[in-house]
């Protein structure tokens, strides 16, 4: 196949050639970045939480009235006793928050009380000795809290614990040599906290961009947090009894004390629902980018079909002449495919530059990381194949032009 005659022909169709190349370039740039966004979002929302999501639900119970800390604490204890007795419930724990809630308490961690710059940041969960079993997280070193370590803690009260359970991610961050168990750290307080247990994995309360550097870094304090506002109960249902346990729990709490607010819509949320809410913008972006990519590829493909058909129509006479002079059908087919490939290559070369430029712009302006090379290569392959596929039908039609055409209208 000689490239010379193709280039000569293209020179006579500068505008059409440029338009197809431009369209391929722009499509490549957008598809490439959109696929990367999809990948980022999907990998974000498929991060495991480390807990028994299938059987978990969370109750948000607000107090009605102005209760003292003592009143709140005894109410929480009665609520927990009632919840743990329910037939469909395996275990329940009080908490200030839960994974994927979308925000909550986090503390800076220091290694010495004098340290000014933080070592890292950790999400804070306040609960009792039932939390590990309730969440279904795995204790990989040390021990759980003892019941006598659990104390009530009012808001703004100086009841910092002296022991804590931390996630492996936090333990490794503080003591990279793996010796965290039994060692201490400081959590914005002058008193040290000793690590008594390490759990395998637990997601933070928020999954926002700012916390990406601290992902899976949590500490558990042996404290029941008593606030004017209310509390969360994390409940683990027995396998297969989630829906029943959710209904029973709401009833049991109202029966315990009517002076409380459990929102009818989102007062009791299954973890599936919590996960759905936590990642809705990630899922939305992935869907939108997916739709745009698909429609874009179809439109670009259709555009190539349209223009190539036009060229074939325009050159019927020339094709006839070539056929009359001995070119095979195969030669004609090859000619149009090669022509398309040439334009495609020019398009993807410009497209790569555009894709990288868009990516760099997004890194500067909208929280984005660098585009991996293989995304570019995959998109290049997709677009070249799309171009060949789109050119195939018109090219086949061209190859069927009869040599007789050459003799007709001259």
């Amino acid at each position: 196949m000689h490239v010379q005659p193709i280039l000569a022909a293209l020179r006579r169709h500068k505008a059409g050639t440029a338009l197809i190349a431009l369209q391929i370039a722009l499509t490549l740039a957008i598809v490439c970045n959109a696929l990367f966004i999809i990948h980022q979002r999907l990998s974000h929302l498929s991060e495991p939480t480390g807990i028994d999501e299938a059987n978990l639900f969370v109750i948000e119970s607000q107090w009605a009235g102005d209760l003292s800390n003592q009143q709140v604490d005894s109410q929480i204890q009665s609520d927990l006793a009632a919840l743990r007795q329910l037939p469909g419930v395996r275990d329940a724990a009080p908490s200030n928050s839960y994974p994927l809630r979308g925000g909550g308490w986090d503390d800076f961690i220091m290694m010495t009380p004098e340290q000014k710059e933080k070592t890292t940041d950790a999400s804070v969960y306040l609960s009792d000795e039932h939390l590990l079993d309730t969440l279904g997280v795995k204790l990989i070193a040390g021990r759980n809290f003892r019941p006598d370590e659990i104390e009530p803690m009012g808001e703004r009260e100086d009841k910092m614990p002296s022991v804590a359970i931390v996630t492996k991610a936090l333990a490794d961050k503080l003591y990279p040599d793996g010796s965290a168990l039994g060692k201490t750290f400081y959590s914005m307080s002058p008193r040290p906290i000793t690590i008594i247990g390490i759990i395998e994995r637990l997601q933070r309360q928020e999954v926002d961009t700012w916390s990406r550097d601290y992902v899976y870094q949590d500490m558990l304090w042996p404290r029941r947090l008593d606030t004017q506002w209310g509390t969360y109960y994390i409940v683990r249902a027995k396998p297969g009894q989630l829906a029943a346990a959710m209904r029973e729990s709401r009833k049991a709490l109202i029966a315990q004390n009517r002076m409380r607010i459990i929102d009818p819509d989102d007062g009791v949320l299954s973890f599936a629902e919590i996960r759905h809410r936590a990642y809705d913008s990630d899922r939305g972006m992935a869907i939108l980018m997916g739709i745009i990519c698909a429609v874009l590829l179809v439109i670009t493909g259709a555009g190539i079909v349209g223009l190539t058909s036009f060229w074939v129509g325009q050159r019927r006479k020339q094709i006839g002449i070539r056929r009359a002079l001995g070119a095979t059908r195969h030669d004609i087919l090859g000619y149009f495919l090669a022509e398309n490939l040439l334009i495609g290559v020019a398009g993807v070369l410009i497209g790569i530059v555009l894709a990288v430029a868009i990516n760099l712009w997004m890194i500067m302006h909208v929280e984005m990381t660098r585009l991996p090379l293989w995304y570019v290569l995959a998109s290049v392959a997709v677009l070249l194949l799309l171009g060949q596929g789109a050119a195939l039908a018109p090219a086949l039609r061209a190859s069927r032009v009869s040599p007789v055409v050459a003799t007709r209208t001259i």
Partner: protein
Amino acid sequence: MFAYYFDLALRSLKRNPVLTGLMVVAIGFGVAASMITYSVFRAVSGDPIPDKSARLFAPQIDSWGPEHNLKGEPPLALNYVDAMALMHAHIAKRQTLLYPVSLPVLPAGNRSLPAKGSGYAVYGDFFRMFEVPFLYGDGWSTAQDESRAAVVVLSEEFNQKQFGGANSVGREINIGGHDYRIVGVTRHWNPVPRFYSLFGSSGFGRPADFYVSFTRALDLRTDTAGNNSCRGTIKMSGWDDWLHSNCVWIEPWVELDNANEVARYRSFLEAYSADQQRAGRFSWAPNVRLRDVTEWLEYMRVVPPESRISLLVSLGFLVICLVNTIGLLLAKFMRRAGEIGVRRALGASRREIYMQFLMEAATVGLFGGLLGLLLTAAGISGVGLLFRPEIARLAHVDLVLVAMTLGVAVTATVVAAFYPTWRAAQVQPAWHLKTN
């Protein structure tokens, strides 16, 4: 003439239904994607208080110092001590402090169960500063702030729920276990984004149910339902320790009418910080900011990155659809070189060729716009799939959006048609008459 060209356009478009369909679909999808994402973008990036956004300011004071501040920028809210100092100095014409609260509303009337309520603790100036419209009654006075009166303003929606929409001014309501006297009921009011409370909030939440007196809320030790951000090692053994800690949680706003007042307030902030430095409370030079609403929204990055990215990608998509249309129009027009040759030979001027083909493009654009309108309507009803619910509910179709959809479709297609039309008008009649 117009009708004649329109008729010609329809005939010509009918001749190549596939090519025409392709162009219409491309423009329809391109415009719809842009309009759907634009409808979200315009909602999240709008000016929430257009006639006053240049006169309302959020003062910031660096109470954390270079070791703890936000890469040189002061914290995004004030601690209690600085907030009170700003209030007492009373330099601005109007000023308020505020923080979000979430409190139960106890049973009253025919309700037997307590209800959830969320709102803000604010000063009396809040209502005038932010031009809150009232249905009944009014806000409260500065004197009532000072006498720490237990007063509350309800929102129209909350008044509807609690009092069936009746004029409740003068009645009592139990919020968080304490009685408040209702002094006013606002009309529906929910500036989007909620510029005045962005510390720890996206700015797109549910509208507030009530506004309670800041001074009264503090007396009752009502905790913030919003962010509370502290630095360093903190001693925390109760409410008073917390008030005097470096924890920031109060959002301040001041109203300043002209450049002089702004300059005066700025120098006040500087002087206050310098005083604190002299008194040994701050061990760093004054570092203050005074941003107006527009600057504050920008600085707080209120527009979600998702909205920005999706608008950009959609616009890129529209550009590709237009490039596609240019190519297809070129093919379509050039295929009719013979026809153009005949028309030119029979006396049509270049101008008339231009008119005819641009009209044809406009017709394609119009159909694309109509398809785009359908897709936009469908897309906006499904926008909940693409954005967070609190953002998605802001997107809506209105006359402006309908006009924009059609306008963008027709204009963009006509612009795209310029080059193909120019090529069509260049056709040499003699050459085409000869060869065909």
